[in-house]
Structure formats: C-alpha cells, structure tokens
C-alpha cells in the first residue's frame, strides 16, 4: 500500500492489508462477481435458506407437506357464512356420504377398486375422500397449536431469562412442574373436562404446550444476554423491552424454529391419538385418528372373515407420511440454521 486513501470517508472500516477488493481491476470472467456482490453481506437467514434448498430430502418433504395440505383444502368445497370460498372438489364424495344408500352394489368394507381407490369403510363411506378431508383437522390444529405455543413460549422464556433472579426461579419451577406430566396426558385430561371438538383440541395442546419453548428460549437468552451487542444496546440507553424484543429474541429464533417444526408432527400425532382413544373430534368425523378408532373393532373380524386392512392402513399411513415429512423438514432446518449446537434437533431438550 503506497498511497493512503482518504480516511474520512472510511472511518471505522476494517481494512485487510495486502489485498484490496476495491482495487482489483481484472477478474476471472467465470467468477460471478459484480460490484454489488462485493458490498452485500449474506445474512444468516439467507444462508440458511440456501442451504435448506440444497437439501434434497428436506425439499422433498416440503413438497409432500404442501401437497397434503392442498389436498386437504381442496378436497371438498368450503363454505363460510353462506359463501362458497373454495369451490374445487378433489374428493369424489362427501366424507359423510353413505354410498350403499345410493348404489346398492356397494357394501361396507368393499376392498380398494378403481372407483374407490382406498376402499370403503365400515359404514359404507368412501375412504379416499375421508383420508383427503381428514387432513383438515390434524394439519390445521398442528399449525395453530405450534403458532400459539411458540409465540407464548418465546415471550415467557425471554422474560424469564432476561430478568433472572427470583422471577426466573419461579417461572422455571412452573415449567418444571408442567414437564412432570407428559403432554398427551395433560391434553387427555383437558379434553376429558371440556369434551371433544376442534377448538377444545387446540386448547388442550396449547394450554401447557408452551413450556418446552419457554425453557429453550430462556437458555438461549441466558447465553445471548452476556454478549457484547446486548451490553452495547444497554449502554446506549435502550429500555428493557426493546433489548429483549429487538436484540435478544431475534437471535434466539433459530433453535425455536427447529423445535417448532419438529413439534408440529408431535401435535398431529397427539390429535390423532386422542381421536383414536375416542376423545378427539365427534365420532364419525373424518379425522385420521377417529377413523382408526372406528375400524379397530372390525380389524380383527371383518365381514366374511376378510380382513379390511385398507381401513387401517390408509388413514394411519396418512398421519405417518405427514409427520415423517414434517420431521424431515425440521431436521433440514436444523442443519441449515446450524441450530444443532443447542441440541434441539438431537431429540429433545438441552
């Protein structure tokens, strides 16, 4: 470096001596360097997204989840307040239509055929239509519950970790207490108290489901709290709330997102398990778990001694496929965001 640049316009800038990207005039034509690219810093989210898109199994899982969600939405027309807001119908029958009333050639537990690709269930309803529509309940409950619990857990954990001391002590004892009960048991009791139904299920899984996020976020906040940029923000006079929600919370997001994506599958299985135990949606609803409950008795003894395997295999297979895809997405996000240091992706808490 022989000549000094004007230091006034570059104050505070870190310079690498010996190589100055600004001074290179000739570049390899194959490098896709542009003037803008030199100034652009690639953010964590952007880099994570690039890595995620390159992960083939995770992208495959995204396709499956999107297809299954679309299939659930477009399975039958949706009507709201008397207006048809979604007119398409991928499923050939209403999930509640009893087929043998219209077509006497159809009987209960007809095996899969061209007209009924997944067979007919024990009440003479088309299983393919029911499996498609069944996604509406489990999938939407899964996303709603995770949205609610993750948001609340984020706030709870951020407050607990940031204030520390006695506040933290009490808040974490509450979380420990909730952790003493398996989530499914708590959900079972709440549904037993409130009765089954869509919003009751949402409440059952949300009421205590935030504890895991709370504990995770608190741990992250404790780590971040010590970092210099938080100290700098405080030194500049930022208020507590602004430090927590502008500086700490965004940096605690990656592990939270990983946990949330893995939890969607857990909630979907939980909803189906309650349905299977006869405590979820009303009997007869085309919900995956409830459908399995209805065929459980006849699995062993179908009509004419045949085993109606299709009534068990397809609804359960749908749950399995969805949850598996969700977990693959969760693993993919974990790899992409480098959140594995927190241990979330390794199957549980830290």
């Amino acid at each position, binding site marked *: 470096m022989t000549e000094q640049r004007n230091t006034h316009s570059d104050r505070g800038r870190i310079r690498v001596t010996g190589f100055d990207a600004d001074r290179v005039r000739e570049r390899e034509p194959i490098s896709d360097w542009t003037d803008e690219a030199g100034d652009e810093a690639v953010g964590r989210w952007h880099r994570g997204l690039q890595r995620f898109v390159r992960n083939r199994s995770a992208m495959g899982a995204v396709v499956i989840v999107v297809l299954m969600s679309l299939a659930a939405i477009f399975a039958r027309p949706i009507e709201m307040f008397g207006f048809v807001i979604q007119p398409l119908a991928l499923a050939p029958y209403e999930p509640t239509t009893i087929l043998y009333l219209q077509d006497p050639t159809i009987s209960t537990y007809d095996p899969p055929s061209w007209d009924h690709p997944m067979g007919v269930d024990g009440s003479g309803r088309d299983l393919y239509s029911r499996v498609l529509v069944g996604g509406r309940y489990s999938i939407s409950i899964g996303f709603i519950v995770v949205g609610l619990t993750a948001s609340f857990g984020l706030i709870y954990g951020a407050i607990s970790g940031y204030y520390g001391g006695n506040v933290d002590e009490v808040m974490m004892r509450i979380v420990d207490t909730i952790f*003493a*009960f398996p989530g499914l048991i708590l959900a079972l009791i709440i549904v037993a*108290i409130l009765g089954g139904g869509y919003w009751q299920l949402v409440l059952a899984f949300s009421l205590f489901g935030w504890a895991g996020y709370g504990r995770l976020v608190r741990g992250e906040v404790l780590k971040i709290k010590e970092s210099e940029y938080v100290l700098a923000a405080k030194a500049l006079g930022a208020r507590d709330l602004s430090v927590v929600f502008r500086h700490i919370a965004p940096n605690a997001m990656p592990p939270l997102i990983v946990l949330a994506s893995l939890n969607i599958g857990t909630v979907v299985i939980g909803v189906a398990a309650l349905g299977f135990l006869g405590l979820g949606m009303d009997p007869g609803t085309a919900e995956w778990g409830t459908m399995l409950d209805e065929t459980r008795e006849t699995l062993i003894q179908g009509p004419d001694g045949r085993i109606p395997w299709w009534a*068990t295999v397809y609804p359960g297979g749908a749950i399995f496929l969805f949850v598996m895809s969700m977990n693959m997405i969760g693993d993919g996000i974990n790899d992409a965001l480098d959140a594995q240091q927190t241990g979330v992706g390794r199957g549980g808490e830290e």
Partner: protein
Amino acid sequence: MSLRRFILKRILSLIPIMFGVSVITFGLFHLTPGDPVSQLVALNPDVSPAEEEQLRRRWGLSGPVWEQYLTWVSNVLVGDFGQELRTGREVSGIIATRLPETIALGLFGWVFALVIAIPTGIYAAVKKDQLGDTVSRFIALSGISIPNFWLGLMLILIFSLYLGLFPVLAPSRLPLYHPEMLWYLILPGITIGTAAAASIMRVMRTSMAEELNKEYVTAARAKGLPERQVILKHVLRNSLISVVTLAATLTAGIVAGSVVVEVVFNWPGLGYEFINAINQREINIVMAITLFTGLFVILANLAADIIYAILDPRIRYD
C-alpha cells in the same frame, strides 16, 4: 460438591415441583363442572340437600378451596386416594393391581429400545455418511414419526392376523410372572419401545460421531489399540452419557405411550384404567393416576440426574 450433597440438593429442589404437581392435578379436576357428589346426587334424585351436604363433608368437598386441597393432600400422603364411585372399591387397591402390568410393559419397552438402538447407533456413527448410516437414519426418523397406535395396529395386522404368530388377545390372563406372558408382551413392548429406540439411535449417532473426532480417540489409536477396543471401551462410554440425559424425557414418553398402547392391545395396566376412568367419570381414579404419572416422571428425572452426576462429575459443580 460431593455426590451426597448433590443428591440431597436435587431432592430438596423437588419439593416445590411436587407441590406444583399436586396443585395442577387438584386444580384441573376442581375446575371440572360437577364434582363426584353432584354426580352421585344425579344418580339418586332422592338425596335431600342436607344429606348432600353431609356427603360433601365426608368426601372432603365442603369449605373453601384451600381447605379441600389440604384435605385431599393429607389423604394422599397417607395413601388414601378415595373410593371408586360406582363400586366403592379403594382406588389405591386398583392402582396396586394395575401398576405391575404397566411397569412390565414399560420395562420391556426400555430393554427393547436399548438392545436395538445402542448397536445401531454405534454402527451408524462408525459408518457415517455411508449407505448403512443413511438407511439406519431413515429407519430412526420413521421410528420417531410413526404414531404408536397405528404401529400397534399394523403389528397386529401383520403378525397376528396374517402370520398368526401371536394371539390377537391373550387367551386367558395368566399371572404376570408366568413365562408365557413374555410372549404376549412382545408386540405391545415393541410398540411402546419404538419411539424411544429411534430417539436413542439418533442421539447415539450424533454424540458418537462427535466423540470420534476428539483427541483422546486419536491418542488411543496411536497407542495401537484395536479399533474395536477404542470404540467399545473409550468412545461408547462417553457417548452413553448423552443417552442418560435423554432417559427422563423418554421415560415420560413411555408413560404417555402406555395409555395408547394398552388400549390398542387391551393390556390391563394403568393406562387402560385411565381411559376407562375418564370415560366413566371416575374422578378419584383419574386424579390418582395423574398424580402418579407426575411423581413417576419426577423420580425418573431425579434418577437420570444422579446417574449423570456419577458418570460425569463435572455436572456437580454447575
């Protein structure tokens, strides 16, 4: 901190949690519309209000909430969970007959999980990023994702109905210690243990792969130790620690799983009783089992912490 002090400190820290568990259990059921007495009254409309009041006092359901809570807790502390409403049997007696069935199932599930997961986890870590690793990772992911009730139904479908290897239901309930019962335990045991096996496999793989990169492994290899001994004696021991930290979570999962799996296989344990009690509104039984679940998970956590502190003394100084 000595091990004894560590254990003592951990046990003391359980007291507020135990209190919280009892409050949640009591609170959830206290919020339930219709306490046991109003149910009894509904069954028998001839009960006069004075008699109802008398009943309430007998069941400890009169007075302010905190008084009811104290009555309940002091009864529970001496092992009195009240009676079953319809038959008047002691709830503690029902639990005593059901508990061994669930413990047998859970133990079988745990043993199955460890036997399957530890060797596969080692294999996957050693063959990292090769075909065998990819396959076992896929299987582990399936094991986490499969709903246990569906797995149970599929096992019945394949092994009982098509292959006829197992009876769908045990033909007669033999006593639990009868050797033949082991055969009937296999399908429910596998069902309940699969999720735990899959989680352990994933943790084993990650932690072993991490350990294999550490310097003491290079040192052991440089010393000329056979690879087998390096892995089984040095690496395995260190990676098992991370399995211990997972053990409490998995035990909670097995407890929750027992509810579903016992219903699938008609296994007469606590979980089966729990669902029955919920359907028949036997509040005393539901409360007792809920409380038991909470205490059991707390104790499992304590046990895991103590084992962890023995295996890895550094934790005691945190």
